[in-house]
């Protein structure tokens, strides 16, 4: 028998004028590192790193389920609402969680849409963070598929979504972790993946903001997997090139969900990224 060091709790914050009951997990002590999951998934993507004693010896890893995802319920009245995530709501949610948990300039680590919003936050709220680890993150990608396929009455969105995103997983990924990763997409609520992808594939507002990111104050490190069809290494490089001082690492044997699909393969890249972040958050002026 073994009991993992990860603990989970709930906090309620206000987003867009209404309460959101948000589930969060954490493990470790030290520098706060707030971790954002991908579209259509939840905090379980981060569990391997949160169970890594060497990493959590000096880092307090915190991950939360976005509203509509995982154990975070959708807001009251969701039954008549079309879920469409926006940059504004996403930013407000992340900032509300930071405020609610009292985090002092955390490192922000986000993957996919979490990486996208990390770069938005780097541009718009850099002073709130001590650094950014943007994984499978880029300026913008239009959809290479019709996102409406993910939510229709005559096809199972979860099973279809998992079958589609399997295209983003590396053939080097251990089979068990490939399927653990896909399971989250199979479990995703109806229309949630579509609503996430609406944000991810339609909002290109980050592009003109990239040059305004000040990496002298808050470093930005981008990590991308070669097997990522959605955010390719070319996409990530284009994005890094647009941010003065940003750094980039390409993972030859990983895909779009590296911390989840291939934890051992991702670990050294994440440790390297943490090493590039300030050890202690500078005190706010």
């Amino acid at each position: 028998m073994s009991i993992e060091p990860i603990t989970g709790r709930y906090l309620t914050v206000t987003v867009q004028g209404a309460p959101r009951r948000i589930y969060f997990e954490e493990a470790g002590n030290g520098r706060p590192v707030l971790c954002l999951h991908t579209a259509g998934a939840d905090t379980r993507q981060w569990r391997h790193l949160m169970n890594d004693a060497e990493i959590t010896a000096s880092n307090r890893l915190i991950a939360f389920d976005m509203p509509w995802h995982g154990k975070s319920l959708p807001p009251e009245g969701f039954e008549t609402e079309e879920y469409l995530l926006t940059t504004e709501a996403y930013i407000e949610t992340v900032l509300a969680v930071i405020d609610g948990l009292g985090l002092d300039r955390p490192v922000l680590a986000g993957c996919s849409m979490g990486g996208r919003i990390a770069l938005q936050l780097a541009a718009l709220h850099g002073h709130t963070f001590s650094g950014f680890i943007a994984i499978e993150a880029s300026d913008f990608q239009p959809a290479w598929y019709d996102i409406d396929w993910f939510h229709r009455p005559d096809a199972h969105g979860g099973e279809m979504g998992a079958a589609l995103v399997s295209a983003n997983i590396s053939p080097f990924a251990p089979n068990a972790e490939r399927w653990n990763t896909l399971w989250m997409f199979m479990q995703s609520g109806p229309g949630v993946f579509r609503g996430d992808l609406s944000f991810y594939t339609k909002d290109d507002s980050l592009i003109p903001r990239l040059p305004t990111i000040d990496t002298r104050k808050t470093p930005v490190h981008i990590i991308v997997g070669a097997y990522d069809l959605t955010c390719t290494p070319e996409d990530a490089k284009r994005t890094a090139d647009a941010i003065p001082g940003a750094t980039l690492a390409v993972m030859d044997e990983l895909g779009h969900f590296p911390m989840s699909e291939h934890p051992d393969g991702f670990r050294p890249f994440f440790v390297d990224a943490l090493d590039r972040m300030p050890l202690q958050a500078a005190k706010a002026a």
Partner: protein
Amino acid sequence: MSPKPKHMTTWEAQVIDTFTHIQTRLDGAPHLLRLGRLFSEIVLIEVDGDEYYLTFDKGRITSVVEGPSRKTPWRFALRTDADALSQFWQARPAPRFHDIFGLVKIGRGRIDGDILSLVKNLRFFKEVMGLARASEEVAA
């Protein structure tokens, strides 16, 4: 029903052999037969312009026939080229060649026809196409 090919090249014979191999492996994969139990359609696989028709009946492949055939009512088609398909069938394909959507994204594959039928059976069809992959143990 389909015309017998007049001159089957080595590659064409290999494709037929590969899909026959897939047919055999599918028969031995209960989970795929369960996933495909509602799938009874004809799928067109086009390789370098050569057509191959896979007939599925309740998840089993019942025939692999080389075209062309204008009378075969295929449901959806995957069109690609021999090199791309060969790379796709490697145990650990190179990036972009590791998935049929990778082929599509780099312009080495095209999917058309009744996409809803594909969407409903996406995991099944992708895993069936992957049955020709060499085992990972070989590549390791």
